[in-house]
């Protein structure tokens, strides 16, 4: 019954995350209220070690736990992303929790558990395992979204997220059930052969459709994006940063595994779903973001739009899933995820920092004259925004570049044009924030919040990462390509 040692190595990051999560939980009762903030130390240690532990599975690639997991470069890549997100969340939230007087112990534990769930999603090679991982991260997210109990908005975010998330989960599960019913297996490798034999018919297709519904909900693509703005707005800012980055990346990982491993053969069917969804998502995100006045909400819409861009790359793979060319598309998705996480996390952290106590300053107009009051903050936020906008020298540009490249490679001319049009629309609202920060005079007195060290470090890391990936994408892209190759 005891699994082989190698399997444990392959599970090392999750073990570390869960272990430290429990450790934080256990320590919590023994720490006096005044010292609760020091709980961030073990939490940070957990996150960092968990991230570092990625080295172990990296050294032991292969299937684990009876094929339920598959450790390959793909999963390593995503582990790096979600691990990094965990580190960033812990760093950025320490002072936030203290400021908002929220219990830190449970928070860290939930973050670490959720990260473990995401890790599972990244390596799951079987649907049910993936589902459990998804649920771990989701349920933790529901709680985190409502973590500010005294805030009606936070409550509401939690409720909406929970209800709709569970709704979507049901669809996902039903999809698994149908796939299982049609083929008798939930293992993606086996599914692949079953699908390739083509005897599955409507049941399997419908199953795929329902699974797509569930995952599309998690990655917030149209028309399932509706929850995103509300939840992102209502959730505590560090949680929003988390929600927008980690779970999304993990859900995309699961989605990719299902589509590219399990359902390659039926790409002709799902290609159009992805295509239409990509188009809808880009427009839904960007057009609605145009008219937002709340920064957090605007960023939420923007992350919807970004999910749409990622779908473009997935659609690009969908035109030729078996072709070697598709590697470029998968790599583009992965690279995009990396860049997206960096810039989005940075942006949300900055918003959280600028929001001040109780997150009161969230309107775009509150940022008027920020460049004079806090030049570095303004510069930093501008960097993220420009990166989100896709301007060269930032990571966002290269992310978009690779997506464009994949789409052009697959001859998705219309999708490319739609994406191009969307980039321009997006430019408007990103620039509008910069306008307010740099080109308007301050409207009210405001005392700049001191930037806590953790937040400062997060900002530094994300900004540096954004620039690094913008200038020298080579190494990360190399890894992304290997990941893509490892998927097949």
């Amino acid at each position, binding site marked *: 019954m005891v699994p082989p040692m190698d399997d444990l190595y392959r599970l090392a990051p999750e073990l570390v995350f869960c272990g430290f999560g429990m450790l934080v939980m256990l320590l919590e009762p023994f720490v006096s209220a005044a010292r609760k903030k020091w709980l961030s130390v073990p939490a940070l240690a957990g996150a960092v070690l968990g991230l570092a532990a990625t080295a172990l599975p990296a050294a032991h690639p292969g299937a684990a736990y009876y094929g339920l997991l598959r450790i390959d470069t793909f999963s390593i890549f995503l582990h790096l992303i979600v691990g990094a997100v965990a580190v960033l969340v812990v760093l950025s939230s320490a002072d936030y929790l203290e400021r908002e007087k929220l219990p830190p112990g449970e928070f860290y534990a939930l973050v670490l558990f959720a990260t473990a769930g995401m890790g599972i999603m990244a390596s799951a090679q079987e649907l049910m395992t993936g589902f459990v991982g998804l649920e771990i991260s989701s349920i933790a997210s529901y709680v985190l979204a409502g973590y500010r109990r005294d805030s009606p908005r936070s409550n509401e975010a939690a409720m909406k997220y929970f209800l709709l998330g569970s709704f979507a989960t049901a669809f996902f599960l039903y999809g698994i059930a149908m796939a299982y019913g049609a083929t008798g297996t939930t293992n993606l490798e086996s599914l692949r052969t079953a699908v390739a034999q083509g005897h599955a018919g409507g049941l399997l*297709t419908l199953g795929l459709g*329902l699974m797509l519904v569930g995952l*599309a909900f998690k990655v917030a693509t149209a028309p399932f994006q509706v929850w995103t703005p509300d939840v992102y707005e209502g959730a505590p800012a560090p949680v929003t940063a988390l929600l927008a980055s980690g779970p999304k990346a993990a859900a995309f990982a699961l989605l990719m595994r299902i589509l590219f491993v399990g359902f390659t053969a039926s790409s002709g069917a799902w290609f159009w779903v992805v295509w*239409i*969804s990509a188009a809808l998502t880009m427009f839904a995100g*960007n057009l609605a973001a*145009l008219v937002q006045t709340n920064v957090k909400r605007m960023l939420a819409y923007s992350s919807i739009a970004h999910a749409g861009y990622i779908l473009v790359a997935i659609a690009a793979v969908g035109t030729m899933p078996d072709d070697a060319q598709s590697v470029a598309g998968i790599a583009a998705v992965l690279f995009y995820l990396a860049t997206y996480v960096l810039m989005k996390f940075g942006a949300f952290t900055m918003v959280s920092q600028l929001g001040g106590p109780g997150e009161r300053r969230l309107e775009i107009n509150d940022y008027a004259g920020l460049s004079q009051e806090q030049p570095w903050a303004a510069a930093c936020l501008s960097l993220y925004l420009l990166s989100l906008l896709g301007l060269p020298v930032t990571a966002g540009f290269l992310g978009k570049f690779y997506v464009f490249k994949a789409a052009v490679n697959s001859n998705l001319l219309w999708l490319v044009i739609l994406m191009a049009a969307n980039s321009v629309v997006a430019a408007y609202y990103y620039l509008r924030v910069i306008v307010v920060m740099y080109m308007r005079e301050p409207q009210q007195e405001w005392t700049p919040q001191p930037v806590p060290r953790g937040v400062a470090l997060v900002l530094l890391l994300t900004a540096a990462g954004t620039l690094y990936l913008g200038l020298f994408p080579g190494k990360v892209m190399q890894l992304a390509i290997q990941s893509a190759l490892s998927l097949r």
Partner: protein
Amino acid sequence: MFVLDYLWIIPALPLAGAAMLGLAGRHWPARRVNAVGVGSVALAFAAALELVREFSRLPAAQVPWLKTYFTWITAGSFRADFALQVDQLTIVMLLVVTGVGLLIHIYSTGYMAHEGGYPRFFACMNLFMFFMLLLVMAANFVLLFVGWEGVGLCSYLLIGFYFLRKSAADAGKKAFIVNRIGDFGFMLALLLIFRTFGSLDFAPVFSGAAGKPQATLTAIALLLLVGAIGKSAQLPLYVWLPDAMEGPTPVSALIHAATMVAAGVYMVARAHALYELAPAAMAAVAVVGAVTAFYSATIGLVQTDIKKVLAYSTISQLGYMFLGCGVGAFAAGIFHLMTHAFFKALLFLAAGSVIHAMGGEQDMRRMGGLRKRIPWTYWTMLMGTLAIAGAPGFSGFFSKDAILLAAADKSVVLYVIALLGAMLTSFYMFRLLFLTFHGEPRFDEHAVHVHESPKNMVIPLAVLAVLSVVGGWAAAPEFWGSSNRFEHFLAPALSSPSRAFLAINPGPSLTAAVNTFREMTQQILWEMAGIAIAAAAIGFLVAWWFYIRRPQTPERVAESFHAPYKLLLNKYYVDELYDFLLVRPTTWISTHILWQVVDDGAIDGSVNGIAHVARRFGDRLRHTQSGNTRSYAAWVLVGAALFTILLLWKVR
């Protein structure tokens, strides 16, 4: 051979003067300004004289004398050098420009002595001299164009010299812009020449003209004519010249009488090789000239501003020059150019002297009886008037007669028009003289302190008066017993390869015609000279009758012919017509259609419209975000339905 070798020195002298005055002259005392401003022109004149000396020793084979200095523009197959050339035509022009120019500069030291911006004035004048010299010495069309535009610029600057007066600034602008319209034609001519000949140098163009299709040559010639019309203020682009009188009087004399406005005539003469091969263009030149000569003379009849009369007179005289060129008598045209430079400069300077004496008054209705007060001015002006009116023996007589003869040879109609014009010329010039100098003073003796001009103004007047009187004898035709040295001198420059071609193979009929003409001439020529003299005399007599004998006549005539009088007084309403037909519609369309409708409305409107639609869409989308969880669930169902339908449909 100094000047021939260093041809550039002639234009460079005034340029140096202009540069010094322009950059540093602001703080100089007047004497130093005079020294530089007049000195540079004097040196240029001296150099021109030396050039004549050297040129006269040049073997005929070396004419035109060409000097290439540096490549100015080169690109692709195109190449324009900074190259100067000298031939007989250039010599004539050089002497006129530097000589008359020098006199006017000297005159200006007196006339402008009390004006603000004195150094600026001389800087511009010197600059003008530079460009004018460049124009007449250029060895290719591009450099000619440089001078052409350059003189236009200086004209602009000098017309607007009194820039505080809006009318002056307007006039300057108008001059430049109307000239630009002409230049548009000139520019197109250059383009067409280059396309046809592959070069813009004079030599290859003129020598290569013979073989080219006539239509092309006609087109080139007509386009050049457009340029010439603009510069020389011919119909229909003459409108700027009367307004140009807003400039200081020496400017009017130099630029708008003697030199610049004659550039069009010079250019036509220079390009005679092209014109001669394009008879239609020649005819156009002649018609434009004749009509303008008559037309502007009629306007001159009723003008009351002393300078305006002279301005219309200038337009009219330029018309004669065009007529001369148009009927093939290029030498006569150039001859008239020269004599006109003398007497018109004289008239303007004298008029300036009058104005100076009257303390700035230009309206002849408020003058009169000045003969005794300013005798020098009166006598010199009389010489000029006699010259322009065509009194026998005066310079204008010979040159105008040459043109009339040539015109008669081609077309009776043109001849008659020109003759009528000559009669009108005589009338309005004597009218000017009588109104100004004769009769009773019509000004307030106490307010105006009439005084004779200083020596530096009078001496140029005297010199020019002498030239106006005797200048014609240089080209007195053979039947007067003279040898018409002028025409012979110019012959090499104004004979073209094409004409040489004709001369070598004269058909028998042509020779016969020439011979019969020779026999007939003596008689006819005398008769025609008599007719011209009679015309001038009639003009004089009518003027005498109107303004000396019966001074009330003009008013009566004006009343009985009210409509025509008004028409003339208002210059045929041409300015108003242009304003109504061109200026207003253009500004209106530009403002209300192009700017407001097309730019702000259509283009910006559609761009902003797209943005607006996007925002509207965004707002719609935003409202789907009702905050109601049930709606969100409905959206999930929408998505589920969409996905499953798409998938199932695709699988089938």
